[in-house]
């Protein structure tokens, strides 16, 4: 029972990582209607920028905010510079450009900052809260930040004109254009926000997993999985999905006999696919209805 509790808490802690990433995934999905495979690398690159700023002597929170701003601008620039010109190319061609971005960012980061791990500071105290040994202060802090982001996103998408316009631009660009929404800029804005959220995710994740160019490889997959399980249209779902993936992964690794410890990733993925079979739009997503 104690082991179960420990693993559950460890699962929640790692789930926080995935939830953070899942939010960024949902953000980009809301604005471009598909995945960005380079999302993890963008977050990693942002984190390196933060690391560089810290190394130059900026105080943590200044570096934090600067990184978010730089990442936001970076996201907008990438959309305007890289994707606007091929707006009309098939989706698969877009995916190839994502793959290209992935390899460029990964290679550039390794070239600039080397592949050896770097420690990244946490803004939260090193001492565990309430003197518990089960879940670290950073884990709790990361979860809190994720929840704050979630609330902000929720407000943006549900209660602001801008958020509504962005959703409209993604869901139905032609109609959105007809009602006077500048679809192109909405998409660019979505990219900027996704990059900014990714930057926050990266800065929260790096203290746990250490900073290195390949740090996001596994996390992006789990984040995607979390987002899909929860439903790509729902930020709340994505966050819950992220936690669910973390918990399932940890429990499977500990309690599934024989193959559990070797296949915890696979087991988690099989469960996700199973969820999708039963509920193809995710646990909290809205089913897409298409007109024929």
């Amino acid at each position: 029972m104690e082991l179960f509790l420990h693993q559950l808490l460890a699962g929640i802690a790692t789930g926080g990582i995935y939830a953070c990433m899942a939010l960024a995934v949902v953000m980009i999905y809301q604005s471009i209607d598909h995945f960005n495979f380079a999302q993890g690398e963008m977050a990693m690159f942002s984190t390196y920028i933060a690391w560089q700023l810290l190394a130059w002597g900026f105080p943590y929170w200044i570096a934090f905010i600067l990184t978010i701003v730089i990442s936001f601008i970076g996201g907008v620039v990438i959309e305007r510079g890289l994707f606007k010109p091929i707006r009309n190319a098939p989706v698969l061609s877009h995916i190839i450009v994502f793959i290209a971005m992935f390899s460029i960012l990964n290679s550039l980061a390794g070239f600039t900052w080397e592949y050896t791990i770097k420690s990244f500071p946490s803004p939260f105290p090193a001492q565990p809260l309430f003197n518990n040994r089960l879940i670290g202060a950073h884990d709790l802090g990361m979860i809190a930040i994720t929840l704050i982001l979630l609330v902000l996103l929720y407000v943006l998408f549900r209660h602001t004109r801008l958020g509504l316009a962005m959703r409209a631009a993604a869901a139905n660009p032609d109609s959105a254009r007809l009602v006077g929404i500048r679809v192109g800029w909405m998409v660019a804005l979505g990219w900027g926000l996704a990059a900014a959220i990714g930057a926050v995710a990266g800065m929260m994740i790096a203290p746990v997993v250490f900073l290195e160019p390949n740090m996001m490889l596994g996390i992006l997959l789990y984040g995607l999985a979390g987002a899909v399980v929860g439903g790509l249209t729902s930020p709340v779902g994505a966050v819950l999905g992220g936690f669910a993936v973390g918990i399932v992964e940890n429990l499977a690794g500990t309690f599934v006999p024989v193959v559990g410890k070797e296949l915890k990733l696979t087991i988690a993925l099989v469960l996700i696919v199973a969820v999708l079979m039963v509920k193809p739009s995710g646990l909290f997503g809205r089913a897409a209805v298409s007109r024929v």
Partner: protein
Amino acid sequence: MTKRRTLLTMAAALAGAALISSPSLAQKKYDPGASDTEIKIGNINPYSGPASAYGMIGKTIDAYFKKINAEGGVNGRKITFISYDDGYSPPKTVEQARKLVESDEVLLVFQSLGTPGNTAIQKYMNAKKVPQLFVATGATQFGNPKEYPWTMGWQPNYQSEGRIYAKYILDKHPNGKIGILYQNDDYGKDYVKGLKDGLGAKAASMIISELPYEVADPTVDSQIVALKAKGADVFFNVATPKFAAQAIRKAAEIGWKPLHLLNSVSGSVGSVLRPAGLEASKDLITTNYIKDATDPTWKDDAALKEWAAFMDKYFPDGDKTSSFTVYGYAVAQTLVQVLKQSGNELTRENIMKQAANLKNFELGVLLPGIKINSGPSDFYPIEQMQMQKFNGTSWELFGPVMSGEIGS
């Protein structure tokens, strides 16, 4: 102490040079890749992909050969170093090895990195009779002169190291409950095998949990929590730097204080212990054979100063806190010694003969007392290691220089 050793090394090198220069002056013999002016050496390293941290080794070797060339080359010949990227993918390793041998026509392939890649090309290299020299992996299968006379390792193999820890456990904690964290690949499994072999009959009762992790896993927190919950009081940490650092930090975070045995792959103070936290790393035990440049013990060490001067001049972008740069420097020095010994007979056969003829060769950057020895039936050049304990700022060597030779 250190000064004397450097003198000894120099003397040995001089003696070696004198020995070989006399008989082989007579005739020159060359295989493809060698000439009066040039020696072509091939190399395969993961400059991209998940193992790209190791790319540092290839870059260091490249820089070292630049230094050798700037100082006049080996016996008057310049080294041309051709290094290709395989991204740690075996089919790519095969392609690059064939390119080196058949297209670039190198004299030998040196320090190709990783067990899967080297396994993939081992048969090919031996069929082509091209030396696959000083491979960068500690797997035991690369020191088998009977079956593979053209393949030779360099660093102490992982199984031997596992046996050293087993000896230590049996000696100090005969009733310990051992928990193992290992990377789920050949490297991790070799260590575990060495430990089990060393524990012998007691392995089954002493090892209470073995947990693997995958390179793509974000963290190993779950495994550490599980090992603590199972009640392990000896922790064998067979993880690469990133995961080893995570494990050290997590163990401290949850208040788990076992006897912590760290595999030497992750023994670097600068790139593992410092990120993990020096306080959390206190009392770690590992083995080593090479000096750690970030360890204050060696701050006045002549050989490391020489290395630092080399780094400043020829590889200024290189990471001086990474153990890979010292490693690359040392292994390149070993190859240069082999080339020197080969004199003017630069045939592939003679290269292997000389590589298997290193006698008490000492390198300044190896730990004191550790010598390189090889022979026609001994294709494991370095077999000695020494245990060390971390005191919170640096490693402290203890106990004798040990060898955990397989079969001993």
